[in-house]
């Protein structure tokens, strides 16, 4: 157990520090913050043009997408990066717990994602003139945590695919793009076709965003327990699927000797 925690935290910290050996903070920070800020502004202005929903609707939806992006890409890139640098086979040959290894790489990026989401939310709220009551902050943090968990669990599934395929980043990109529409971040769910609404109910983020919007509009945490619990449940299901996929694709990668293919 101690070893597992060491792999998660020490491994994750080392990996995160290595990131800054590769990319200067002067590029990392503007890039990481700039992308969600401009994304929020883009959709908020599109909403104004279309005359649907408030700026707050797009502010919350897209700030939560920033969490999804980091959660999914953090886990997805954990395997893709190892494959690219030809260290995946060596890593899988080690006796360390697989989930701990990849979670360790994902946790710092998930935390970064939450911080980035909070900062871009605040900056864009100031630019767009959106006021969110301070009393809703704890509830928003709770929704953030639940969404980060669910998106990371989905990211684990994508990361597991990275044990088998080379282009998992492109796939993660497409999934994130679909979430722009299906998770209700930018399009009110009632405008979507019924079959798409059913899909949106089964993916991470939909219920997290729903809870966050309700909380920002004055609902209490107890009043939004239903969507929050649904978000956590969906995260739990994807976590189980992701762990099973991780095991299966590692076995397949060893069997077909495809771990070093790039």
């Amino acid at each position: 157990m101690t070893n597992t925690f060491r792999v998660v935290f020490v491994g994750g910290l080392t990996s995160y520090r290595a990131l800054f050996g590769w990319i200067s903070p002067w590029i990392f920070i503007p890039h990481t913050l700039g992308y969600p800020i401009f994304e929020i502004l883009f959709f908020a202005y599109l909403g104004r043009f279309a005359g649907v929903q408030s700026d707050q609707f797009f502010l919350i939806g897209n700030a939560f997408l920033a969490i999804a992006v980091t959660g999914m890409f953090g886990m997805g890139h954990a395997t893709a990066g190892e494959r690219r640098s030809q260290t995946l086979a060596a890593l899988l040959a080690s006796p360390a717990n697989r989930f701990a290894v990849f979670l360790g790489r994902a946790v710092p990026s998930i935390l970064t994602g939450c911080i980035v989401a909070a900062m871009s939310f605040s900056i864009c709220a100031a630019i767009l003139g959106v006021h969110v009551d301070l009393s809703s902050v704890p509830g928003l943090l709770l929704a953030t945590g639940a969404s980060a968990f669910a998106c990371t669990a989905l990211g684990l599934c994508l990361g597991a695919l990275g044990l088998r395929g080379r282009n998992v980043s492109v796939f993660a990109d497409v999934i994130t793009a679909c979430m722009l529409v299906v998770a209700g971040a930018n399009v009110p769910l009632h405008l979507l076709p019924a079959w798409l609404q059913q899909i949106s109910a089964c993916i991470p983020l939909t219920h997290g965003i729903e809870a966050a919007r309700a909380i920002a509009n004055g609902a209490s945490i107890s009043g939004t327990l239903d969507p929050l619990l649904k978000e956590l449940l969906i995260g739990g299901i994807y976590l189980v699927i992701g762990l099973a996929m991780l095991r299966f694709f590692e076995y397949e990668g060893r069997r077909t000797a495809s771990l070093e293919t790039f």
Partner: protein
Amino acid sequence: MIAAILTGVRLHMKQASRNPFDLSGVVVWPILYASIAYYLLDAKHDPKLLLSASLGAAVMLMWSLVVIASSGTLEQQRWQGTLELVVAAPTPLTAVIGPICVGGALVGTYGIGATLLWGALLFDVPVSIQHPLAFAVAIPAAALAVGMLGLIMAATFVLYRAAFHLGIATQYPVWIVTGLLVPLSLLPAFVRPISWLLAPTWGFRGMQEAAIGGTPWPDIGMCFVLSVVYLAIGGTCLVAFEYVARARGSLRLT
């Protein structure tokens, strides 16, 4: 040199069209942005607005592919250790990187077909092009101009190894200030002069005017003028930044 450029464009287009996974992204992204616009605008009474949204989403993809193609290819070459060889080759770097950018923009034209088809099939967007000849000229003109704008970006990518992230970060700002889905009249006044300097503005307007009826030729002309200006700026920047990267010995750093 011309042969190198034409071969480069053809090669990069073929490479980008080989991978079904990458192609799925090329098709899915503009469709999703167009869908968001269709759902939000709900402009059944104004089909021209939806047609404009389709074209705007396609030009958005064009710009994305230019930055992804140029930054991604340079990053890939860094990882493979071939960037120094490309830089050391007698062919000017502009003739190597320019085709990557233009090739990316031309792959982006797949998005035009995808969004128009998607809109017509699912959202009843009427696809009637008022000036077919102008539309046929506007597409490559837009691709060329957007590709050449990418050349300026690519110059910085030679210098920085975090090129890919820099490239990705420019997507939304350019989409916003060029008025592809959101009219410039809704944005602060200082955005308008910036939009005049950016190729996607004119490329989109050229296609839009040709499609819905208007005067597309001045916009198409601006695409060609800007292409020449970008080529001059991008070429100069590439030479300068290549010199700096050689002096620092940073070409190979991954």
